[in-house]
């Protein structure tokens, strides 16, 4: 190579190197240009590969140090001499990155219309590899639009917007995973906001810690706006604990009351593990329902005084008395829940449905009951079962008259592994929704920190998964089950930063991508959402923060 040519500045400093080997199964190996240091490149970075008439898009899945001389390891050069260090690095010692080609885009004008397709081949030897440009991100993920919601920026690409197609997103059940403190709640809040803003579905959010509805807090205890503050006319806050809501300055739109008659044996089966019930004790609820009748069994059973009456009941149901007794003890806990009303509920399901029918979004705050998993699971399962039943009827009607198609509904649940564990996934309504997907226009958004606790079948049915940092082996396996190239993504996933970074992959995105989740909680970030709700005033916020403009 000529010295003068060699020393001309590269036209495109984005070029990283060239493809030197690879396979479709293992991805391609890219030798870095001498002047590119491995430390400039991070796992998960989005790259493009130019190959004759094709353009490949891929993700960096591994970074290696290579050497032309294998004795380099045992006999390193004198790097104390800066000249020798400069010469050796990039020549004898060089950097190699592994790239997993995910998508392929033909430069042919007709093929461009179809957009990028899954890569079924690999780029040839010596193809040029570059950092993807903002335009590449646009080509693959689209621009922000009525259906595309800007969720974050690809890793190390602060000016490129990664947009999620919300319409596609809600067609399947989806999952948000990550260790505690990695930003699941902020990410979920963003997704909920995106769905509201794009108006493609109604939502029911089981807000365990009361952090989505009116306001939430960041790790630094900084207050951030909840959905109701952002979309006051589109979001209704339902509360299980009116006192708690009022203490927090929230005036709930509706206070949920559940009657004894609303509780079904299926609701108890879900709580088997939480209430530490044996199989026999949990099944006894079904026998009690047959014995007393479907609306009365819970009330009658809890009103039993014990003694002979109890022994007689156990005998007539042919159930072990100890099991029946333990069931009664555990269910007596429910008496302490103020939202459960012996005299009857207030048909919360109808209320929720009436809001959802109007295209509104319901956030159910649990208040102090958020810390009681049994209360959370009971209410979530109970309400969802009924709502799903109504949607099933509406969906059937729509089969006869397509104009009657119900608005899609997205139900958000936290601590999802408690509802969807392999033991009970077949019994809970959430398991049914996750498996049957959008048959009845109802899908789930599951939020969880322990995805390995979720039934494998359900995990494999989740359309799009957005995963913050996970480091437990089982959790990593579980999230990546059934994903092509999962071995590579595993290394990407386990190296995410612990804050504001996530790996998104699945149905709604053309290829897996590491993102820096967009900001939420600052005045600028609220302004970026461009919300046109009447009660939301960005200028007012600015004034509150920075004072009036002179």
């Amino acid at each position, binding site marked *: 190579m000529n*010295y003068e040519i*060699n*020393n001309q500045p590269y036209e495109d400093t984005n070029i990283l190197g060239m493809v030197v080997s690879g396979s479709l199964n293992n991805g391609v190996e890219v030798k870095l240009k001498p002047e590119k240091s491995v430390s400039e490149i991070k796992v998960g970075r989005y790259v493009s590969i130019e190959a004759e008439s094709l353009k490949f898009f891929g993700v960096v899945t591994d970074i290696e140090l290579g050497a032309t*001389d294998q004795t*380099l390891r045992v*006999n390193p050069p004198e790097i104390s*001499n800066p*000249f*020798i260090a400069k010469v050796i690095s990039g020549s004898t010692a060089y950097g190699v990155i592994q790239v997993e080609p995910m998508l392929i885009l033909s430069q042919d004008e007709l093929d461009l219309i179809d957009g990028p397709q899954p890569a079924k081949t690999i780029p040839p030897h010596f193809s040029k590899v570059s950092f993807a440009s903002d335009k590449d991100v646009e080509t693959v993920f689209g621009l922000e639009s009525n259906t595309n919601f800007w969720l974050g920026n690809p890793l190390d690409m602060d000016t490129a917007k990664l947009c999620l197609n919300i319409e596609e997103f809600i067609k399947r059940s989806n999952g948000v995973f990550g260790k505690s403190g990695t930003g699941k709640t902020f990410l979920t809040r963003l997704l909920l906001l995106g769905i509201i803003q794009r108006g493609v579905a109604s939502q029911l959010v089981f807000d365990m810690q009361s952090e989505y509805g009116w306001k939430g807090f960041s790790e630094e205890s900084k207050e951030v706006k909840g959905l109701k503050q952002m979309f006051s006319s589109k979001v209704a806050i339902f509360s299980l604990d009116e006192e708690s809501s009022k203490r927090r300055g929230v005036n709930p739109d509706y206070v949920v009351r559940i009657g004894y008659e609303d509780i079904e044996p299926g609701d108890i089966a879900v709580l088997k593990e939480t209430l530490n019930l044996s199989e026999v004790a949990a099944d006894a609820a079904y026998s009690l329902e047959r014995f007393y009748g479907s609306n009365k069994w819970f009330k009658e059973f809890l009103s039993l005084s014990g003694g002979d009456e109890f022994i007689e009941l156990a005998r007539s149901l042919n159930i072990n008395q100890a099991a029946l007794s333990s069931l009664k003890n555990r269910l007596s806990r429910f008496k302490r829940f103020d939202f459960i009303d012996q005299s009857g509920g207030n048909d919360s399901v109808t209320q929720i449905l009436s809001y959802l029918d109007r295209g509104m979004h319901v956030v159910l705050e649990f208040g102090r009951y958020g810390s009681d998993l049994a209360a959370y699971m009971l209410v979530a399962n109970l309400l969802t079962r009924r709502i799903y039943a109504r949607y099933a009827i509406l969906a059937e009607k729509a089969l006869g008259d397509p104009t009657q198609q119900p608005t899609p509904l997205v139900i958000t649940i936290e601590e999802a592994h408690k509802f969807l564990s392999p033991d009970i996934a077949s019994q809970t309504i959430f398991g049914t929704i996750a498996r049957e997907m959008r048959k009845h226009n109802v899908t789930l958004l599951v939020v969880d920190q322990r995805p390995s606790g979720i039934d494998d079948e359900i995990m494999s049915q989740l359309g799009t998964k957005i995963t913050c940092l996970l480091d437990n082996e089982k959790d990593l396996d579980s999230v990546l089950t059934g994903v092509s190239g999962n071995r590579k993504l595993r290394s990407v996933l386990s190296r995410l930063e612990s804050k504001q970074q996530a790996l998104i992959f699945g149905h709604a995105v053309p290829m897996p991508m590491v993102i820096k989740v967009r900001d939420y909680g600052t005045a600028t970030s609220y302004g970026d959402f461009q919300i046109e709700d009447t009660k939301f005033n960005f200028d007012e916020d600015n004034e509150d923060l920075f004072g009036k403009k002179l």
Partner: protein
Amino acid sequence: MNINKRIGEVVESSSLQFTVQCYDLYKSPNIGTLVKCGSDPQLFGIVYDVSNKSMDPARRPVPRGRNENKEEEVYLSNPQLNRLLITEVNCVLVGYQSVDEINQSPVSLPPMIHSFVIECSDEELKRFSSCLDFLPLLLESPVLNSIDEVISSFLIKSSRVHDDSSRFLIYAGKELAFNLSGQLIRLNNLLKRISK
């Protein structure tokens, strides 16, 4: 032709190397110097060995300075020595110029005997060393023993005529690293020499 830089004439040649007898005793270029000879094509060589010896191989010089105080006085007292002793320079052929283009590849014919040998100017050295494709010729030359010393001298001389000498040396170092993959110790020693 630059007569001032003419150092001698070819007295022996092959397609790999040639020997120059210098016009003046002890007036030879250093090891690693780029020289040229011939005219069509003009051939380039790099000095790899310099020797001073008796013109007649059968007559070995004998000591003559027993009664002299200084070495110079030996030559003053024996003026015939400047005729009987000669300086010879061995050069390895590294390329040729055809029309305006320099080709750094083996030559097909050796230079003619009595071809004038001229030390290249800085401009010619700069032009020639802008490309180091001849390095494999030197590195794998079967005729040379201390070739690494020759290469380092050539590269140091060349670096001085380039505008950015350190950048040139890094470029040269990388070329060496490319050609010496698998010979890390040799590479390391060479780099140490040119970094001094």
